[in-house]
C-alpha cells in the first residue's frame, strides 16, 4: 500500500498531545475527510497520544497518508517503550483502567477507527496503529 507522506511527532509532555491533535486535524483536512470523520480520527489520536504519555512514559506518534486505488486514508501509529500491557483482552474492555481515566481510550479509539492493531510486549513497550479511510 503506497505511503504518500509521513511525519513523526514526539509525545513527551501535555502540550505534545495538543500538537498531535492539531497535526492530525491538518492531515485529515488535507486528505479531504468530512467533519465527522475528522472529529473521530482526532479524538482517537488524542486518546492514544495520552496513553503514550500516561502509561508509556512518552514516545512517538507517526502520521502517514495512504493511497490504495481510489481510496485515501490516514494511518496513525503510537509507540512507547513503557511497561507494556500484560493482558491485551482486559485492556481492550470498556471501563478497564490502570490509571485514573475512564478506561475508554483503547476500546473507544478502536470504535472510532476503520482498522486497529495493538502490539505490546511486557517490559518493552506498546504500539497501537489505527487507520481511517475516507
Amino acid at each position, binding site marked *: 500500500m503506497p505511503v504518500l507522506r509521513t511525519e513523526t511527532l514526539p509525545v513527551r509532555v501535555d502540550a505534545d498531545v495538543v500538537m498531535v491533535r492539531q497535526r492530525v486535524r491538518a492531515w485529515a483536512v488535507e486528505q479531504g475527510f468530512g467533519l*465527522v470523520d475528522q*472529529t*473521530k480520527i482526532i479524538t482517537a489520536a*488524542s*486518546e492514544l497520544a495520552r496513553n503514550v504519555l500516561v502509561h508509556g512514559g512518552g514516545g512517538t506518534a507517526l502520521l502517514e497518508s495512504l493511497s490504495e486505488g481510489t481510496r485515501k486514508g490516514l494511518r496513525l501509529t503510537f509507540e512507547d517503550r513503557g511497561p507494556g500491557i500484560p493482558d491485551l483482552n482486559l485492556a481492550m474492555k470498556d471501563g478497564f483502567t490502570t490509571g485514573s*481515566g475512564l478506561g475508554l481510550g483503547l476500546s*473507544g479509539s478502536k*470504535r472510532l477507527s476503520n482498522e486497529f492493531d495493538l502490539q505490546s510486549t511486557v517490559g518493552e513497550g506498546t504500539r497501537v496503529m489505527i487507520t481511517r479511510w475516507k
Partner: protein
Amino acid sequence: MERIPILKMGEFLLVSIQVDMHDRLAMTLQEDLTERIVSAHARGVLIDISSLDVVDSFIGRMLGHIAAMSRILDAETVVVGMRPAVAITLVELGLSLPGIRTSLNVEKGMDLLRRARNENSSGPGEASRARTQD
C-alpha cells in the same frame, strides 16, 4: 500561568472554552470553577463548548466532575453549544456524559439555569415554610 477566564453574571458563572486545552489547563479550570462557585455564591454554571472541535474522554470526564462538584455545592451546571460531530464522536467513544445537563446554545442554557433556580426556590419545602411564617 495560562487560565480559562470565568465570568460572573448575577448568581451564575459563565465559562467559554475557546482554546484547545491541554490536560493540565483542564484540571486548572476544574479547580478554579469549584473555588469560584463557593466564593461567588454561584447557583449555576454555564460552560460553552461551541468552539471545541474535539471533546475526548479527558475533557468529558472534566465536564462530569465539574457538574458533580457544583451539584454538591448547590449549583446547577449546563454545557452548551456542543457541535454535532462532537456529539456523534462522544457516543461512539462510549461517553454519553451522564449527569450533565446540556442545551443547544447559551440563551437556552441560561433559561435552563434560571428555571432550575426558580424551581429550587419555590419547591414544596420553601413554599410550606413561607406559609407557616404567614
